[in-house]
């Protein structure tokens, strides 16, 4: 059913992006208000559409006939079903709160019209991504959010490191995009369509040859690893923390990085064509999640801890994708959006309050000076640690439970190992998050100056998200999986397991919290002992598994070298070689046609014209 509200959902933030820049340059104060209002308006439209969804009903809207010509049909059409509804609600809902927060956070930045313009552009792109009715339309949003991410990471572009971080993010995402394009090419030729409502039909999927099905699945997963920061393409995300903190909260935690999960859920039919693909997803997700969790333990920059934790949590979502529990993955997307946005925004308040200090070693004791922020950060920490009844518990528990039901021929008998590994990561998560909480808020203040609580415009949205981090899981737990049945395959229903089950399910989180508490508060001496014993581990962890160096050595350096060789050696010799050949040809033609060469190129070019004319003349008497 066509519905203009759907067009407005996307167009309002787009117009907001233009207005907040144009009008914001005249009066910088209104840029933030305009941008926030635009996203909030979009949120209202989404809610009204969501309310109107009944049963299997969907809405759609065609913006342009786009790539439709001859007998090719690829219109620019957007589409609203229950899966899009969930994503749109998160994007615009959490997006509105982060816009509001940014008004306070960016209050003293002279470039804030540009900031809010980019932020609105991001929302519009993200909405196109989750609303696209065909893969090329999704790709519009996919690239759009990549561009906004690039622009916002390098927002403070006078710092060349920040600008380089933006470029790194864009290029690494581009590598993933190759997968997206290849998948589109394969699916188009096999299925004759790129419409998502067509592609998941069994009779259409049956047309894909099996080896092509495997390549398409892997290609889509490659695309997802780029955007959702999984191995081998995750090192851009920690660097992306160069952007302003609201950007980290919105783009690099709550919304954009979950696009890969969304793509997997949308294309589940293709992902499951070859059982090897989900197996590869499972192992990649487990490795990414574990590596990121280990790195997070040794980070001292509060934003870096959260960044690695995001990578780790995204790995958790991919674990659910790998066992076919797409709605469980989506559930974790939603709860993660709540608590991770809350964590990032609390961290932003801390950074704001500590005068742009990000190193936790120069924080401490902030619970006294920033009580509201401490409360929010604490609630979100308990949520991410997976303590019942906080939001993260329900989604994390559902993932662990679905892992137990995994059946994939390629897992052989390692299925339980994955569940065990995931539990260990959950303990680890609780440990490093508690560590960051202790270092930031407990003990005594180790920095300089006087930290202060953030203004109301910043604390209010953080508190809203804190409340969602507390109750969000409990509220959504019952209806969520059944709601998404239709666009997504059903999963075994989870109940959270009653009181006893909740207590048992919280055990990994409690272990992690207790360990961190013991090591950082009760017996710091033991912690130093452990660090001495595990010094290799600490080196690896704080060195971030040397992934940047390895990638630099294996990929970037060869290409740079190739580039130099090709341009200095190949290009030069080819130019000279063909140059001589071309000279030879002209000489031969010249001699053939007139047999007069003066050895001077200029006269000889003249001769070429003359000889050509002569030749033409020669044909005359033939008749």
């Amino acid at each position, binding site marked *: 059913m066509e519905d203009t509200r759907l067009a407005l959902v996307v167009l309002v933030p787009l117009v907001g992006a233009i207005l907040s820049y144009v009008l914001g340059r005249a009066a910088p104060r209104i840029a933030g208000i305009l941008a926030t209002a635009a996203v909030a308006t979009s949120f209202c439209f989404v809610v009204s559409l969501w309310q109107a969804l009944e049963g299997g009903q969907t809405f759609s809207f065609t913006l342009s006939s786009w790539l439709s010509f001859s007998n090719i049909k690829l219109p*620019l059409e957007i589409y609203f079903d229950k899966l899009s509804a969930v994503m749109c609600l998160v994007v615009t809902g959490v997006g509105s709160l982060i816009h509001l927060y940014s008004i306070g956070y960016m209050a003293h930045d002279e470039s804030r019209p540009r900031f809010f313009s980019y932020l609105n552009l991001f929302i519009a792109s993200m909405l196109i991504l989750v609303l696209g009715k065909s893969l090329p339309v999704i790709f*519009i949003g996919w690239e759009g959010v990549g561009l906004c991410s690039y622009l916002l990471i390098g927002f403070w572009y006078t710092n060349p490191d920040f600008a380089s971080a933006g470029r790194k993010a864009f290029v690494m995402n581009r590598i993933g995009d190759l997968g997206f394009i290849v998948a589109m090419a394969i699916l188009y030729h096999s299925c004759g369509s790129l419409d998502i409502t067509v592609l998941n039909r069994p009779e259409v999927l049956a047309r894909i040859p099996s080896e092509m099905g495997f390549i398409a699945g892997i290609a889509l997963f490659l695309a997802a690893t780029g955007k959702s920061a999984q191995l081998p393409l995750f090192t851009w995300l920690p660097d992306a923390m160069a952007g302003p903190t609201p950007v980290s909260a919105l783009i690099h935690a709550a919304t954009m990085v979950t696009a890969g999960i969304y793509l997997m859920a949308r294309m589940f039919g293709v992902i499951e064509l070859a059982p090897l693909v989900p197996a590869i997803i499972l192992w990649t997700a487990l490795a990414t999640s574990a590596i990121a969790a280990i790195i997070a333990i040794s980070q001292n920059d509060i934003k870096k801890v959260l960044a690695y934790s995001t990578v780790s949590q995204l790995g958790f979502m991919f674990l659910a994708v790998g066992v076919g529990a797409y709605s469980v993955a989506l559930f974790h997307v939603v709860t993660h959006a709540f608590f991770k946005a809350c964590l990032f925004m609390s961290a932003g308040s801390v950074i704001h309050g500590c005068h742009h200090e990000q190193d936790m070693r120069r924080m401490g004791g902030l619970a006294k000076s920033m009580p509201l922020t401490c409360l929010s950060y604490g609630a979100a920490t308990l949520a991410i640690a997976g303590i019942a009844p906080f939001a993260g518990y329900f989604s994390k528990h559902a993932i662990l439970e679905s892992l137990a039901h995994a059946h994939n021929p390629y897992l052989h008998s390692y299925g339980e190992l994955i569940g065990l590994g995931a539990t260990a990561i959950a303990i680890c998560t609780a440990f490093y998050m508690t560590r960051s909480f202790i270092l930031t808020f407990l003990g005594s203040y180790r920095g300089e100056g006087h930290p202060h609580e953030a203004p109301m415009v910043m604390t209010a949205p953080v508190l809203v998200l804190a409340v969602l981090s507390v109750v969000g899981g409990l509220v959504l737990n019952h209806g969520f999986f059944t709601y998404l049945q239709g666009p997504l395959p059903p999963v075994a229903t989870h109940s959270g397991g009653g009181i006893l089950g909740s207590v048992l399910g919280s055990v990994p989180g409690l272990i992690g919290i207790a360990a961190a508490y013991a090591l950082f508060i009760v017996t710091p001496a033991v912690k130093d002992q452990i660090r001495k014993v595990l010094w290799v581990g600490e080196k690896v962890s704080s060195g971030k598994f040397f992934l940047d160096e390895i990638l630099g050595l294996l990929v970037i350096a060869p290409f740079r070298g190739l580039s130099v060789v*090709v341009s200095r050696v190949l290009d030069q010799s080819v*130019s000279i070689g063909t140059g001589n050949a*071309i000279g030879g040809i002209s000489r031969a033609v010249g001699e053939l046609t007139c047999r007069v060469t003066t050895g001077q190129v200029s006269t000889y070019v003249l001769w070429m014209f003359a000889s050509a004319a002569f030749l*033409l003349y020669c*044909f005359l008497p033939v008749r």
Partner: protein
Amino acid sequence: MTIPWPPLSSLIVVPALGALVCLAPWFSSKIDTKARFVRLWALGVSMLTLVILAAIARAATMSHGAVLGLEEAHQWIPSLGITYHLELDGLSFAFCLLTAIISLAVIAWSAKPASAGAGWYALLLLGEATVMGAFLATDLVLFYIFFEAMLLPVLGAMALWGGAQRLNASLKFLIYTMAGSALMFLAILYLGWTARAMGHTLDGNFAFEITTLASMKMLNPTEELVLGLAFLLAFAIKIPMVPFHGWLPDTYREAPHGVAAFTAALLGKVGIYAILRFMWPLFPTFMVQAGPYLAAAGAVAVVFGALVAMAQKDLRSLLAYSSISHLGFCVLGIAGVSTMAMTGAVFQAVSHGLITAALFLTVGAVIDRQGSRDFDRLGGLARSIPLTAFFLMVFSVAAVALPLTSSFVGEFLIIVGSWKLFPAWTTVALLGVVLGAVYTLTAYLRTMFGPLHDTDPRTGGDIRGFDVVVLAGLAAAIIALGIFPADLLGMISPAVEVNAVPSVVADSSVALGFSR
């Protein structure tokens, strides 16, 4: 045979006459008001050409439905069977539209060499006339004349107002293109002679008109191979395809900004156009055999151009090699019989013309302002010239083929369309998508981001006035074609099918899956 009103010839005659008027002695005086007047005159002429083209297209689509197919034919040299035959179909229209827009943009751009007077505009208008002619002519001799004549304005402008190495560069350019076209000219004569010898023509005369020649099917495979190679060499040099690109870096480095924009946007496109217009109908068997090699050449050019561009530190050289890379996609697109890929290639050619002209002009503004084109001496300009930085960002984003820009449409159709025919080469070409992002963003990073370098600006300030209109117009065209490409695609695809595809499909000896 329909002769539309205004006639197709007006697309050639109007700018040519306009160029002649520019040379009138009244204009060549050094008085300032007259210098301004000649610019307005040239602007008016190029605008009129664009209007005429739009009027013709509009009239044609009104009377013939969506597909354009206008012809204009006169006897010219009857004793030799040479005709004056022009045709405007969707294929020609796409390129003529590009020519009209680029000419207008380059003429309207305020920066021109200091010593250039009325002659600058005369040469640009002459360039417009000859390139238009090349895109309209269907008689091979007529095409050849335009194909050669369009060199003159470019060479003239480069030799008169180019950089320090201008004469060297001009000579190199001349020799390369002449070498290719000389062989093509011999091939054209051979075709005409064969047509007469076989007695296929009505009056027993030579024939050079493309549809007449193509319908004869008079060539044996060996002839097709030899003649096809002769044609291909001419176009490979013109596009240019690797390894025939030796002239390009010098030309793009030494030519004045406007001429570099004009050359990069238009001259190479004649090669792409001519392969579709002449080679597919004339040598279908050869083209099918050459397809995989052509696809390979295209894919290699994409990667080669991108790798060399990555190593450049000179902004203009970077643009030159990125052009080689982007045109590699076009070559890949015209290598195989797929409506999707071929239509995409034509669209990509138009899109690349718009984007590369815009980039040459914008980069020219940066170079003129800073007095340097070297990355190491630029940096941090986003703060001092924000409007230029904004436009450079828009065009860079378009160059890396982000969706909703025109180049995405072209590259997407080429890649998806070629995938079935040449999966391996398409995959190789895809590498260019990543490398393209690397060198484009690096160039942007080094010029616009980072701390402001302590160079002293030669001319103050950001772009302003008419130049903003020019860049905004080009940006609007690029984005409009990115969001609403369907009309143009719908014009191109039937023309491509008529020209290239049926000659192969009808030939049952060629077993080839018709793929879309």
